[in-house]
C-alpha cells in the first residue's frame, strides 16, 4: 500500500514536472526538426506554395557535387583547432585565477568581460582593429617597422583572424567553467601537495587535472558544437569574403536558403551538419577517454 502510494506519487511528479518542458521541447525543437527533415527531400525555394519531392537529390548534391561546402567545413576546422589549442591555456589561467595570483578578483572580472558583450558589438570592435585603412593592428606593426598584414583580406589569414575574435569572446566562459571545477576540488588535496612542496605546475598537472575530467569533457563538446555552428562572426565581419574564403558551413547554409533561394538544399545541409557534429563528438569522447 505504502509502496504503491510512492510509485503513484513518483509518476505524478514525473508527469507534472515534465509536462510543460516536454510540450515546449516538442513544439519548438522536435516539430521544427521533423519539418527540417521533411523539407530536405524537396526542392522548395522557401516561398512558393508547391514543394516538389526530389528524393535524395539534395543529399547527393552536398556529398558529391558541392566542393565549396567541404572547403567551408575546413574553415570550421580552424575555429575548432584554435579553441582546442587554447583549452590547456584556459585551464592554466583558471588554475592561476583560483587564488593563485594577486588581484585575482579583478582579473576574473576582466577575463569574463568579453563574454558579456553582444556579438555584433564585438564584431564592430574587431573590424576597426583589423581594418587595412587606419586599422589599429597594422599601425602597431608599422610602429615596429614590420610589414602590414591583410588580417581580413588575405584568404590564408582571414580565418585565423576571425578565430581570434572567437577566442577573445568565448575563452572567458571556458575559464569560468574550469574555475568552478577547481574551486569544488577538496581543499585538503591541494593542501597536502603544498606541504609536500610541489610546484604550482606539479599541483596542476598531477592533482588538479585528473579531477576535473567531466568539465573538460563538457567544454570539449561545447567546442565541437560551437566551432561547427560558428556563424555570426564571419557573417557580420566579412560576410564570408574575400571571395567566399571565410565562409563557414552555417554561413553557406544560410546563403543557400535565403540568398540563393534553395531552401530544400539548405535543410539537407543542416541535417548533414547535425550528423557531423554527432560523429565528431563521439570520436572526441572516445579519444579523450582513451587518454584519460
Amino acid at each position, binding site marked *: 500500500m505504502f509502496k504503491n502510494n510512492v510509485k503513484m*506519487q513518483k509518476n505524478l*511528479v514525473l508527469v507534472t*514536472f*515534465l509536462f*510543460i*518542458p516536454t510540450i*515546449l*521541447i516538442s*513544439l*519548438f*525543437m522536435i*516539430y*521544427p*526538426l521533423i*519539418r527540417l527533415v521533411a523539407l530536405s527531400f524537396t526542392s522548395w525555394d*522557401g516561398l512558393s506554395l508547391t514543394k516538389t519531392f526530389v528524393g535524395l537529390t539534395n543529399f547527393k548534391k552536398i556529398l558529391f557535387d558541392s566542393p565549396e561546402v567541404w572547403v567551408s567545413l575546413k574553415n570550421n576546422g580552424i575555429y575548432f583547432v584554435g579553441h582546442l589549442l587554447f583549452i590547456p591555456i584556459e585551464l592554466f589561467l583558471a588554475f592561476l585565477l583560483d*587564488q*593563485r*595570483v*594577486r588581484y585575482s578578483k579583478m*582579473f*576574473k*572580472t*576582466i*577575463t*569574463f*568581460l*568579453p563574454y*558579456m*558583450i*553582444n556579438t*555584433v*558589438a564585438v564584431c*564592430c*570592435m574587431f573590424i*576597426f*582593429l583589423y*581594418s587595412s585603412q*587606419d586599422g*589599429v593592428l597594422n599601425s602597431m606593426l608599422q610602429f615596429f617597422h614590420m610589414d602590414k598584414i591583410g588580417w581580413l583580406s588575405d584568404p590564408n589569414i582571414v580565418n585565423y583572424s576571425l578565430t581570434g575574435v572567437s577566442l577573445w569572446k568565448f575563452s572567458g566562459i571556458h575559464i*569560468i567553467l574550469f*574555475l*568552478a571545477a577547481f574551486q*569544488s576540488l577538496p581543499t585538503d588535496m591541494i*593542501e597536502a601537495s*603544498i606541504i609536500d612542496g610541489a610546484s*604550482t605546475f606539479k599541483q596542476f598537472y598531477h592533482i588538479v587535472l585528473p*579531477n576535473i*575530467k*567531466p568539465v573538460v569533457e*563538457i567544454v570539449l563538446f*561545447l567546442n565541437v*558544437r560551437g566551432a561547427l*555552428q560558428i556563424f555570426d562572426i564571419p557573417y557580420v565581419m566579412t560576410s564570408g569574403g574575400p571571395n567566399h574564403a571565410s565562409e563557414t558551413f552555417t554561413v553557406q*547554409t544560410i546563403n543557400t536558403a535565403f540568398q540563393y533561394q534553395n531552401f530544400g538544399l*539548405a535543410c539537407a*545541409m*543542416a541535417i548533414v551538419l*547535425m550528423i557531423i*557534429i554527432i560523429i565528431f563528438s563521439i570520436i572526441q569522447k572516445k579519444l579523450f577517454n582513451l587518454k584519460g
Partner: protein
Amino acid sequence: MEANLEIKKETTINITRRSGSGGGVLKILLFIFIAAIVILPILITVFASFKTLPQIGSESALKPPTSLNFENYKEVLKSTNVFVGFKNSMILVVASVVINSLLSTMVAYCLTRFDFKLKKAYFAIFLVGLIIPGIVTEISRFGLMTNIGVYDTLLAPILIYAGADLMQIYIYNQFLQQIPVSVDESAMMDGASYFTIYWRIIFPMVIPATATLGILKAVDVLNDMYIPFLYMPGEEHRTLSTLLFNCITDPRTSSIPKLSAAAVIVMIPTLVIYFIFQKYIFSGIAAGAVKE
C-alpha cells in the same frame, strides 16, 4: 557545510601567500597582458563613439577623442524609445530567467532522482536541441508561433527562451548529483512528498547555481537580437537590442561613430548587470560546482 567553507578560506589564504612570493610578478604580468588584450578593442570603440566620420577617416583609432562629443549617442537615442526598450527587455529577462530556472531544475530533478522508461530518449532529445542549427528551422517555428497566436507579443520570445536549455539542465544535473540521495530519503522518512522535497530541499540547495545560470541566461536574453526582432515587429514591443539592431544593421547609413555609440549603448545594461552580480557568478558556480 559552513565549517567546510571556513577551512577552504584559510587554505586559500595560505596558497596565495605561498605562491605570491614565487613567480608572482610573472603571473601578474601575464594577466596584465591579458587585460590589455581584453580592454583594447573596447577602448577604441569607446573612442570612436565620440568622434565624427571625418575624424575616423583621418586619424588613428588609438588616438583618444579630443572632446566628449555626445552627438552620436544623441543620434542613436533620438530614433529609439529607450524606456520602452528597457521595460520590454526587463520583462523578457525576468520571465525567462524565472521560468527557465524552475523548468530546468524540475527536469534535472526528474532525471537525477528517478528511473523511468524514456529517460535516455528524453536526454537525447535535449541533446538534439543543442545541435539543431538555428535559422533554418526558424521558418517552421515562425509558422507555429503565428498559429498559436503569440506572434508580435512578448510571449513569443519568452516561450522560446524558457523552453529547454540543455546547457542549464546539464549543469543542474551535475549539481543535483552532488546532493546525496540520503538527504531525500531522510526527508521521505519524515513523510515529505516528492513535491515537498523538490520545493523545500532541492530547489533551495541549487539557488547558488541558479544565481549563476540566471545571470548567464539574462545576458543571453539581453544580447539576443534575432528572436525579438523576428517575432515582435511591433513598435511597442522593441527591446533594447532590437532598438539598436535597427541602427546597427543598416549598412548604407550606419557609420563607424554611430555604430560605436550603439555598441556602447548595448553594452551598458549588460555590463551593469555583470558588475552588480559578478560575485554571484563566481561564488555561485563554486558553491555547487561540477565535480566527479
